[in-house]
């Protein structure tokens, strides 16, 4: 005969006071005010740790071993030899040079063009909204599409850029034929894609200048150059710096475009460090060396990111 009281609940009810007290205790401890911050942040940090930081630490450890991912041989500890190999490898320095050339060229071009674009779009004029969208369109393409299509555009027979330039040269102009030309080709693509980004930043600065500063300058009879130097430029200077740092960090990462447009060619003249690491790891399977090189890059990125954060905070203080 079934009794009214469920034996299970009876037992649990008997056990519950102390159990729930400790459960409530733990929950209380967890949710108490001091713990709230950490509680909220924990899942994010854990995820990042597991997916990003743990692998990074693992490969950091690995960089001290000799290991090739395509062989079954276990890693052999060799200390800093990977790093010294990497740092003395002239190939690597060549790649750093290429990367530096591309980064400097592209970022400089982006800053100048972006700045001029911002000046252009600072005032309202008919159709401004739509033209602005057109200028922002390059940023919306996927990098792989950009790479693929610009490869077409640079093609000597089929690409309109090559054909356009050929109008001015005696014979067919092959853009990707020489290192210099290939580098310029990549710089142009990158700058094309990202100068609108700089424009956005500078534009934000230009329109945030309080009107009354310009009025005061007008009353003080300052000329346009003076106004620009003392009022406008200081406002956008901090944004330009942020753009510079941000784009430099991003430019360091250039992989997709180089890989798809020139494949690092001709030869290896446009091969950036990113592409080289990729090759090291997945073509030559020198996994641990690739890790070491990766860590050197990481160090550079950390330095740049610190500068970037510092610049952001300075800007907020002065605002």
């Amino acid at each position: 005969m079934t009794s009214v009281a469920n034996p299970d609940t009876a037992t649990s009810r008997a056990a519950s006071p102390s159990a729930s007290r400790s459960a409530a205790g733990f929950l209380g401890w967890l949710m108490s005010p001091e713990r709230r911050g950490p509680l909220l942040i924990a899942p994010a940090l854990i995820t990042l740790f597991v997916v990003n930081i743990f692998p990074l630490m693992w490969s950091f450890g690995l960089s001290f071993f000799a290991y090739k991912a395509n062989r079954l041989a276990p890693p052999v500890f060799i200390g800093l030899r990977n790093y010294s190999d990497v740092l003395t490898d002239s190939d690597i320095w060549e790649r750093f040079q290429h990367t530096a050339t591309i980064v400097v060229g592209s970022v400089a071009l982006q800053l100048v063009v972006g700045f001029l674009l911002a000046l252009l779009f600072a005032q309202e004029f008919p159709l401004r909204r739509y033209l602005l969208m057109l200028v922002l369109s390059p940023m919306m393409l996927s990098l792989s599409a950009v790479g693929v299509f610009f490869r077409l555009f640079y093609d000597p027979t089929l690409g309109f850029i090559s054909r356009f330039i050929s109008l001015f040269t005696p014979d067919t102009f092959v853009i990707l034929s020489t290192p210099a030309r290939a580098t310029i080709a990549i710089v142009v693509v990158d700058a094309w894609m990202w100068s609108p980004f700089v424009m956005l930043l500078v534009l934000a600065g230009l329109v945030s200048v309080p009107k009354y500063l310009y009025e005061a300058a007008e009353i003080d009879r300052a000329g346009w150059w003076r106004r620009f130097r003392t009022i406008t430029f200081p406002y956008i200077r901090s944004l330009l710096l942020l753009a510079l740092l941000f784009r430099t960090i991003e430019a360091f990462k250039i992989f997709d475009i180089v890989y798809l447009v020139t494949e690092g060619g001709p030869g290896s003249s446009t091969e950036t460090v990113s592409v080289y690491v990729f090759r090291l790891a997945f073509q030559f399977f020198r996994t641990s060396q690739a890790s070491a090189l990766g860590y050197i890059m990481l160090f550079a990125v950390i330095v740049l990111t610190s500068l970037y954060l510092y610049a952001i905070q300075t800007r907020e203080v002065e605002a």
Partner: protein
Amino acid sequence: MHEIRLEKVTKRFGNGLVAVDKADLDVGRGEVMCLLGPSGCGKTTMLRMIAGLEWATSGDIMIGNRRVNDLPPRERNVAMAFQFYALYPSLSVGENLAYPLHAEKLSKAEITQRVARVSQALDLTSILERRPHQLGEGEKQRVAVGRSIIRDPTCFLFDEPLSRLDIQLRQTMRTQIKEILSTLDKPTVIVTHDQIEALTMADRIAVMQAGRIEQIASPDELFSMPTNLFVGGFIGTPQMNLLEATLTEVGQRDSAGSVTARFALLGEIISASVNSRVGDFEPGSKVTLGIRPRSFEFVDIGTTDALHADVDITEPMGAETLAHLIEKGSDLRCVVQSSIRLAPGNRVAIRCKPGQLHVFDSSGILVR
């Protein structure tokens, strides 16, 4: 020949808003004119039109006998101190002060000299190297003023110069600015919403409301002879009592140009000696009587010709006390010496002191 003159100046904005409506104004050389009024009355717009930061829709703006309507600010040679100071954030205090001088092509020595002179007058010498974001409100304000007086302009324009300062600083700066202005002998226009500022600093005040100038007069005249209800109610703290009344009878004119009249208000009849023009009104006319809180005198209860009321709340103000009296639903503000003790619930009788009763007709204009 430095004066400012506005003739029938109107400013209409694109959306139809009339910010300034056919205003006439003139400011003499060395005179300090305050534009006073509540927010939105058009005073700042008027100032900006004199500066050239807004174009006048119609009318003439003359500075030093020259019509400047079509001239941009830089060609009017005016100096202006902005409400938010408008100090150049990337320049030091010294560079801010020197900024307007670069347009005059002075030698470096001359510039340094002038900066030194001004910074000394305004006590800025110790902070010449600092930048605006490192300054306190008072310091910023002095730099803004300094930047104006370092030049030799046709006139000075100040937009709410003291509004962002605390009471103490305000009092100090009021005196200081007044001293400086008196040495400069140029027409000055100051915009403010604070009447204490206007009453203490101005030679004459233009009271504005909704784009129109209500009255232009010296502080004394504004106080003792407000032309309409608005000015009467605006000038003077605590606010003037404005009571609706009916004229019951008018007596004979006497030699001094006054006439005795009787008014019915708050259920009682009082008589007072008022301006003879009141005699032009028919008995039974509706008028508004204006009595300032300090114009009352206390009399014994039961006196004829006096108003009776109950004490509602008293607010001690130090040497004086502000008493709120209430009668038949109407509020009366009365300021008395604190030695006279009044308690809530007391019944009192008050009378207006002779010659201090203002009579406004049914359209709000002072009868005189």
